[in-house]
């Protein structure tokens, strides 16, 4: 965990420097004892101090355990990255293709990614879950999900 803590501490120190630097660009307000910069600046300093302690602990080998890796060669990591890409595409295509088209595709793709190979069950879960969620939100809670190109057809 030493290397992971070291990298994390450096990242949080970088965040501290960024926040402190940005707070100096904030507008000054007259007759305001504590301006908008006060809290973020002091909180960033608090974060910086804690990050320094973590840095010290990592240098001094406080935590000798193995840290989990973020290697791209790892099968799990590859699966995660593909999964995140699919989810991002899903959300961005909601507006144009609509919830009812995209959700079964997403569910099927994710189950496939998770190595489910029972295609009948996959299709059934994908369709029933999508329609179930859509109807529950629309009819019971009155929340409209984006329908994309189906919006004219599916008005009810």
């Amino acid at each position, binding site marked *: 965990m030493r290397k992971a803590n070291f990298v994390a501490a450096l990242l949080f120190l970088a965040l501290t420097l960024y926040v402190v630097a940005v707070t100096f660009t904030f507008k000054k307000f007259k007759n305001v004892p504590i301006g908008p910069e006060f809290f*973020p600046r002091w909180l960033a300093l608090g974060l910086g101090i804690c990050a320094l302690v973590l840095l010290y602990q990592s240098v001094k080998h406080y935590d000798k355990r193995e840290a989990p890796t973020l290697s791209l060669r790892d099968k799990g*990591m590859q699966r995660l990255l593909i999964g995140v890409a699919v989810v991002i595409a899903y959300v961005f295509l909601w507006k144009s293709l609509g919830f009812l088209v995209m959700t079964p595709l997403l569910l099927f793709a994710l189950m496939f990614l998770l190595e*489910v190979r029972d295609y009948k069950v996959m299709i059934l879960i994908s369709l029933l879950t999508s329609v179930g969620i859509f109807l529950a939100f629309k009819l019971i*809670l009155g929340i409209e999900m984006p329908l994309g190109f189906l919006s004219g057809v599916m008005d009810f």
Partner: protein
Amino acid sequence: MNWSLLFGSYANVLLNLQVMGMIFLGATGGVLIGSIPGLTATMGIALLIPFTYGMDLIPSIGLLLGIFCGGMYGGSISAILIHTPGTPAAAATVMDGYPMGQKGEAGRALSIALYSSFVGGMIGAVLMTFLSPLISKMALKFGPGEFFTLAVFGLSVIISISGKSIVKGLISAFFGLLLATVGMDKVCAYLRFTKAPGLYDGMPFIPTLIGLFALSEVFAGVEKITVAERIKATITRALPDLDDVKTIMVPVIRGGLIGTFIGAIPGAGGDIAAFVSYGETKRASDHPELFGTGVPEGIAAAESANNGCSGGAMIPLLSLGVPGDSNTAVMLGAFIMKGIQPGPMMYVEHLDLVYSIFAAMITANIAMLIVGGCGVKLFAKVISIDKKKLLPVILVLSLVGAYSINGNLFDASLAIVMGLVGYLLQKYEFPLSPILLALILGPMSESNLRRFMQIHDSKFWLLFTRPICVVLIILAVASLVSSVINQKKIERRTAGSTTK
């Protein structure tokens, strides 16, 4: 107290089938709404207010109170089963509820949550009946200084919920507090760190919560899952066994009292109450090192406090006309819609109505117990579904939950970003709960401190001349010191057991 009127009002509620039906309907809906991440009891109440237009006053209030109480318990279901608090008030339940579920004791966790919610809710409702005028007088004394110190007291429990490393817990907390400063500064109306319209009002709370707790778990599941991973949920009873009841008796009573007190303070809701109660229970425990691994006391403390809050929040609403939290704020709208203006005069002009509300509140808690008890086996079955098929469904539900708050894709996208942040933080053992607590208490502490300084001409020391502030500061310091001592004790015991 007009006893004959009180008993008459109780009889009117208990013997009226329409009122009872509405309370049970509300409790069922509340449990369901509360259990879906992204849908809160507040949202449920707001959605159902239009349906109460044509109803009489008492049945409609019964329906809304049923949702309120049911929603508070419902939040614990997803907290225990899928690591995502269904409502912000159930955020503290995740810490011990989820690990207990992962150990194959989801049914036990749900039954403890149900029992604790019921007892906490009853404590709140009974105290509301008898102490309403007294507590509201005290709550009226809360100004910016008191709210600031209350937030500081709430933040002092961060070390208790930091997990293995205090430094990492504090880093998470500072990170959360910084996130809470993103967006429009409420005092000077100045945009900080962003010009994105979706962040004008700060980090949207529900999408952030869904991202940190639900999506991070889904992402971790997608990375790790290789073989069919099923956790068998053992469900033997709807209510906890006698041993569990004995173990959680003190935390439940303490949680109920803390919840009622915090709920009675306008602006402080069930989320804060649950964290404070959890911190206090861990502090008082003989085995604080076990908290976070799935101990009954952890679930009991959080659940009794957030349900106690529902009774507490009604106190200022009824006696001052000031809502104690977002649920009662929406309910205030329902009262006004029905031509009733809550406030001190309500105790003079509509005392029968006040007593009927007390009766409906107690009945709503009983309804929640019955509905939750009947459904506990069904809810716990969720966890025995093959995770490979469940994870994609949780993901869709989470994204829909994030989207449904404001109906915009920005919130769903933010949930994904926060999901990745949560995944990375969790992978490297940075606890997520302090971020959540910081997001709740950060804005409260900042705006109230700045208001206090503005009012008192920058004389910060005046804070120490206010009795409530002094008491809260002493409590915060005591909580911090004892948490650090506890944490050291945990580290020593852990080191000892590793050596053995």
